[in-house]
């Protein structure tokens, strides 16, 4: 069962919403202001003390919607169980250029996110709440926060911190670094931020979509949450889907939905990128039969990730697209760890060579070796994700590599397809 922003669904306050949408507004394209939010969902149901919401979150089986799909109750329990001062951060820094879901959610349903932030803060006993956002959201969220303050909805003041437009800005330790006043650069773990985070305090970092789901679980309970989705990955999720004709939209879908229902059959697509730029390429023939859940995707070496599904049209060159993204990923390296610093630009250059006409014989072997060399050798998983992206591109576009080796290219359309940000970081200030 899916709905896009084009299909309305019914819903009333106090009665749990049946079907979709759950997070997205009832009237597509019309953000819900506080009045509409309260009419639809009511006030945030505070439990009266820390810890009480965690059972519900565990029973609901909520997994993180920030990319790692980690069971939310475990991270929450770790922070809740710690002693002393605790911090909560709503991570809205959607650093994946191809993903628009968090931005859309923050514009369309900020109050759900902010409810979730307050409820999770109560559950862990946080004394400090932050919202971490890319530039541009400040005024709207600030307005939402002051409306909520006037209505007396929030128990904790929320500080907003701006994230730099870096791919790693939303990474947990980079985020804590940034909140602490430093650059958005990852640090070595352990200790994880849930043990020692902002100012040394245990810090719960949750993606904004995860918090929105949590806000609904708090109202309607785990049974309701599990009414959609799969047994291991219940609920709905926001996906950014790129059709082969170039049109993209954010959809709220049930986890486990067949990919074929999300994608138009025409124009024809040659391959699917699943997860985002740390995700995996799959041949279209294989991908068409898969469902959008990690249990299925993991078997093919893929994962839901940031919820990006991009169908590469038949007339494009997959190598050129992959090379563009690989170059972006390389320039977004923090440059702190030797293997990443050395491996990622070499992989990007290697893919660029493959994307050209005629290349040296050993480039392909070099790329495969480098992808293996950088995996699990950095302080964060940027090299791992990049290696996964590159390695899957080498597999899926292998026939095209042979074509290019002979000096030709199958593509008929040379316009860039996958979205990228402009501007390479060059100075320390680019990371603040």
């Amino acid at each position, binding site marked *: 069962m899916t709905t896009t922003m084009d299909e309305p669904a019914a819903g009333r306050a106090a009665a749990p919403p049946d079907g979709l949408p759950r997070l997205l507004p009832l009237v597509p394209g019309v953000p819900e202001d506080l009045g509409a939010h309260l009419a639809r969902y009511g006030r945030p149901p505070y439990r009266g003390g820390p810890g009480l919401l965690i059972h519900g979150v565990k029973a609901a089986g909520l997994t993180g919607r920030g990319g790692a799909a980690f069971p939310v109750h475990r991270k929450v329990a770790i922070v809740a169980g710690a002693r002393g001062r605790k911090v909560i951060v709503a991570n809205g820094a959607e650093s994946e250029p191809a993903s628009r879901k968090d931005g859309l959610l923050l514009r369309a349903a900020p109050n759900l996110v902010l409810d979730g932030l307050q409820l999770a803060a109560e559950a862990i006993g946080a004394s400090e709440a932050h919202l971490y956002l890319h530039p541009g959201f400040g005024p709207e969220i600030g307005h939402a926060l002051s409306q909520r303050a006037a209505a007396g909805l929030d128990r904790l003041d929320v500080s907003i911190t701006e994230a730099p437009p870096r791919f790693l800005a939303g990474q947990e330790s980079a985020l804590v670094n940034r909140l602490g006043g430093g650059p958005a650069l990852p640090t070595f773990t352990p200790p994880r931020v849930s043990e020692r985070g902002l100012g040394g305090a245990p810090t719960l970092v949750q993606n904004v979509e995860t918090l929105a789901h949590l806000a609904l679980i708090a109202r309607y309970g785990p049974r309701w949450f599990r009414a959609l989705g799969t047994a291991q990955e219940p609920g709905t999720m926001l996906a950014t889907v790129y059709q082969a004709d170039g049109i993209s939209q954010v959809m709220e879908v049930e986890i486990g939905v067949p990919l074929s229902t999300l994608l138009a059959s025409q124009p024809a697509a040659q391959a699917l990128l699943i997860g985002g730029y740390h995700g995996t390429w799959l041949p279209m023939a294989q991908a068409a039969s898969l469902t959008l859940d990690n249990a299925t995707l993991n078997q093919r070496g893929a994962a839901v990730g940031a919820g990006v599904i991009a169908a590469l049209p038949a007339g494009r060159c997959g190598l050129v697209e992959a090379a563009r993204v690989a170059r972006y990923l390389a320039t977004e390296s923090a*440059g702190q760890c030797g293997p990443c*610093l050395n491996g990622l630009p070499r992989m990007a250059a290697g893919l660029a060579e493959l994307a*050209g006409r005629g290349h040296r014989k050993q480039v392909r072997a070099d790329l495969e070796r480098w992808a293996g060399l950088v995996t699990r050798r950095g302080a964060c998983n940027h090299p791992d994700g990049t290696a996964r992206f590159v390695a899957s591109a080498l597999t899926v576009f292998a026939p095209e590599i042979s074509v290019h080796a002979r000096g030709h290219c199958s593509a008929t359309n040379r316009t860039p397809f996958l979205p990228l940000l402009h501007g390479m970081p060059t100075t320390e200030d680019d*990371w603040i």
Partner: protein
Amino acid sequence: MSGTTAFWYASRATGIVSLLLLTAVLVLGILVNRQGRLPGLPRFAVTSLHRNISLLAVAFIAVHVLTAVLDTYVNIPILSGVVPFASSYERGWLTLGAISFDIMLAMIITSLLRGRLNRVLWRGVHLLAYLCWPVAFAHSIGSSRDLQHGWLLDLSIACALMVAAAALWRLAHAARQLPRAARVAAILARHSPPTGTRGPARARERIAR
């Protein structure tokens, strides 16, 4: 020569040896930082020698101070080894000696406790080496007539030249080093295929961090 005792000779001798050892420690320290090697020796020898000779230097300086104190010809209080201005004899020059020894002790203690200390703190104290050596050198030349002429003067100057050369080498590297934010871009530029031709000559070097 009346009044000069074995203690006084020992203090002068250990002083000279200490200066040589400190010169070696500093040069070796720069070699460690630059990941340089000593011909014929494995990599860990450079690190090992740097650490061990620094401890040896401290031992020699301790004897150097002790024998100067024990010598009865001049009155040098034991505290003057670490406390500036504590000696009335050659107050200025001995003060320099105390200062450099204090820095040395701080460097060694922070290095022994390195795992528990803030990295920036360790680095900051260790950088004081560049202050420690010149101060020790000034103490040596100023307080010892031995070093002010003859072959000992030549030896002292040779030490100073070696330290200066090593320090310049270190500075040159620091000046050439790319800031973190620019390193990936540099590797990308070096390895990216120029448009229209086959790939670049493959280089196996790495950008040093």
